[in-house]
């Protein structure tokens, strides 16, 4: 999706609107977006496909340029920012929103406070230039990993401490800026080393699909404007199925550290635009086998699978055609481990997020 024509349109619109009441966000909001298409991962060559049926989320949206562009390309967009940290208290966004007759949903959320992302699920989230403004980067990244299948993220990284006595790059470190240290802007907090950012992403539920840095790639530090380096990456949630059409419903426990989940005895998913069949790869724990896994699609029974021993298994089934655009798949085990002193949850099988797929 070429953003240049739309960027030109917005520039002209800003000139036409003018304003004496506030200053437009002064930086190029499309700069990071243009880099996305230069990443080598195949996913990056077709942003439209990544956006899928949407909705798409843009965090720290500034005047909303990217959100409005995505909308112009047919995406349903939720834009998020917080007036106290937005350059013009979101007046720029509102002015453009009105002038464009846009239907982009603006949500005023303090990402360091108590917030709930507005959508249940997103196909793609853009989080460009916002992470180092947050006090709690782990929290927002975990929240996103629970809701968004993919994320495009950019943030400042540093190879050295500001006094250049310590090379941070190879270690999983984060530098905490003082309130008056970072261009006298007290809204800056954590600047990560590359290793630190990668570890943070891993522990908060993301797999790095593609990664590059731009800016000062030799002597970058957390503070100096002349030694600014940015990491730019495409991430895929380890907590959600990579098949963006599959949404977990009831019967799934919280994701565990390495992106797997216990199910309960009964568990369900909803599938948008289902294909010809489904494949579920799971793990039968010690002590549960023999057990039978049965499945039903919108109430219609699918073949059952007898699991006679502990260990990995694959359940595969064809779906009766034609299928509706949204369907509900229910699974049921003939037995489960009941809650006990060590674990108060009912536990059926173990499923890794990437192991539940729909087949075309």
């Amino acid at each position, binding site marked *: 999706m070429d953003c240049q024509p739309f960027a030109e349109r917005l520039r002209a619109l800003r000139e036409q609107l003018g304003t004496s009441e506030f200053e437009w966000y002064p930086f190029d909001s499309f700069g990071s977006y243009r880099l996305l298409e230069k990443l080598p991962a195949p996913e990056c060559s077709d942003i439209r496909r990544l956006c899928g049926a949407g909705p798409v989320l843009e965090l720290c949206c500034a005047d909303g340029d990217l959100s409005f562009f995505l909308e112009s390309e047919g995406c349903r967009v939720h834009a998020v920012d917080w007036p106290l940290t937005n350059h013009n*208290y979101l007046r720029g966004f509102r002015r453009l929103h009105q002038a464009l007759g846009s239907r982009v949903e603006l949500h005023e959320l303090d990402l360091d406070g*108590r917030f709930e992302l507005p959508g249940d699920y997103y196909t793609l989230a853009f989080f460009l230039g916002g992470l180092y403004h947050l006090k709690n980067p782990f929290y927002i990244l975990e929240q996103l990993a629970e809701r968004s299948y993919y994320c495009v993220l950019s943030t400042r990284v540093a190879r050295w401490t500001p006094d250049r006595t310590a090379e941070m790059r190879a270690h999983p*470190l984060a*530098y*905490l800026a003082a309130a008056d240290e970072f261009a006298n802007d*007290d809204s800056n907090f954590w600047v990560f080393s590359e290793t630190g950012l990668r570890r943070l992403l891993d522990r908060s539920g993301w797999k790095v699909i593609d990664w590059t840095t731009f800016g000062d790639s030799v002597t970058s530090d957390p503070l100096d404007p002349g030694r600014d380096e940015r990491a730019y990456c495409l991430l895929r949630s380890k907590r959600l199925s990579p098949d963006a059409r599959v949404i977990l419903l009831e019967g799934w426990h919280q994701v565990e550290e390495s992106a797997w989940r216990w199910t309960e005895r009964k568990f369900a998913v909803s599938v948008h635009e289902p294909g010809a069949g489904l494949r579920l790869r799971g793990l039968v724990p010690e002590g549960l086998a023999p057990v039978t896994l049965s499945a039903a699609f919108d109430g219609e029974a699918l073949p059952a699978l007898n699991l006679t021993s502990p260990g990995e298994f694959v359940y595969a089934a064809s779906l009766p055609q034609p299928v509706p655009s949204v369907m509900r798949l229910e699974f049921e085990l003939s037995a489960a481990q009941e809650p006990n002193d060590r674990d108060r949850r009912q536990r059926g099988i173990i499923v890794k997020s990437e192991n539940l797929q729909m087949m075309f």
Partner: protein
Amino acid sequence: MPGDVAEWIERGDLFRQQLDRRKAELAPADFEWYPYDSMGGLCLLDPLLTGARRRIDEILGAGPVLDLCCGDGDLSFYLESEGCQVDAVDWPVTNHNFLKGAPALRDALASQVRVSAIDLDSRFTLPRDQYSAAFFFGGLYHLKNPFYVLETLARHVEHCLLSTRIARWTPDHSLNLQPHPLAYLVAADELNADWTNYWVFSEEGLRRLMERAGWEILEWTTAGNQTDSDPVAAEHDERAVCLLRSRPAPRLTRLEGWHEAEGSGWRWTERRFAFEVAGAARGVLLDATLPEFTYARTGPLTLRAWWNKAPLPALRLERAGPFRYAARLNEATQDPARLLFEVDRCVPPDETDRRERGLIVLGGAVSS
């Protein structure tokens, strides 16, 4: 309660011995007591506290007292035995016996300690609004979001006694962390093979975190390996122990220009209305409505604001309906400071209502 901390620690040791005997008598069949000495950290307070701050009763204040990451609640029960009202907090998923130990002891001791299951890595609410003191020993490095927890505590707790692991070196001892404000993020299997470990700070990193999260460090010491500590090796374990005092959160108080609260608490304002702001406020949010009633008589309005007489950005209200006014605030030259709002037109008193009416304000808030 004894005044000097040394005596208080000694009494704590006696209490622990009694508690250990009680635990042995109870001998629960369905869970195991927390196997470590959760009151062992108290001995660190002796070298920490100096001068007038050795008076532990003054630190604990009038209560209530909060015990975070309480384990089986040993410290909470000791504090209660010393006359404190105590809330004990832990999270079953990470507690050694799924938080069965603390309620069992509470029942056995006929204690009034309130035991709450709270996930400190969620956007949690503390059991009470205000505490005179909190104990937070050995919990910070188990949190994903230490900033949030420390900020939340700073809004609700006056004094905090905290200990956490710190590190002078990276695990390979190639990089000296100590002089830099850094945090090391351990891998899931890197520290005691325990995935609940997250951030280990350098001393400078922890000090900066405290400062930015709203705390003043009153006392500070370290214990353990004070030469070549690192984030992961057992023999390179160093702990920081500190006494913290929270900086007051900024507060808004209405001054002139407000009418009585109506309905769910909203108020009509006059044309000019003002707040007093106490504490270090860095931003203000005002949630308000330009009512159709006003708009029909005034048309579009401009809302102007001043922070101690310095103008803040104005907001043009082109149509009736709800809006939010937001502005960042420079450091005030006086405390309390004055925040004044004014709309350029309003509805004057008339026969139906003798009040001057500008906007309807639903709420205001200042942030630090």
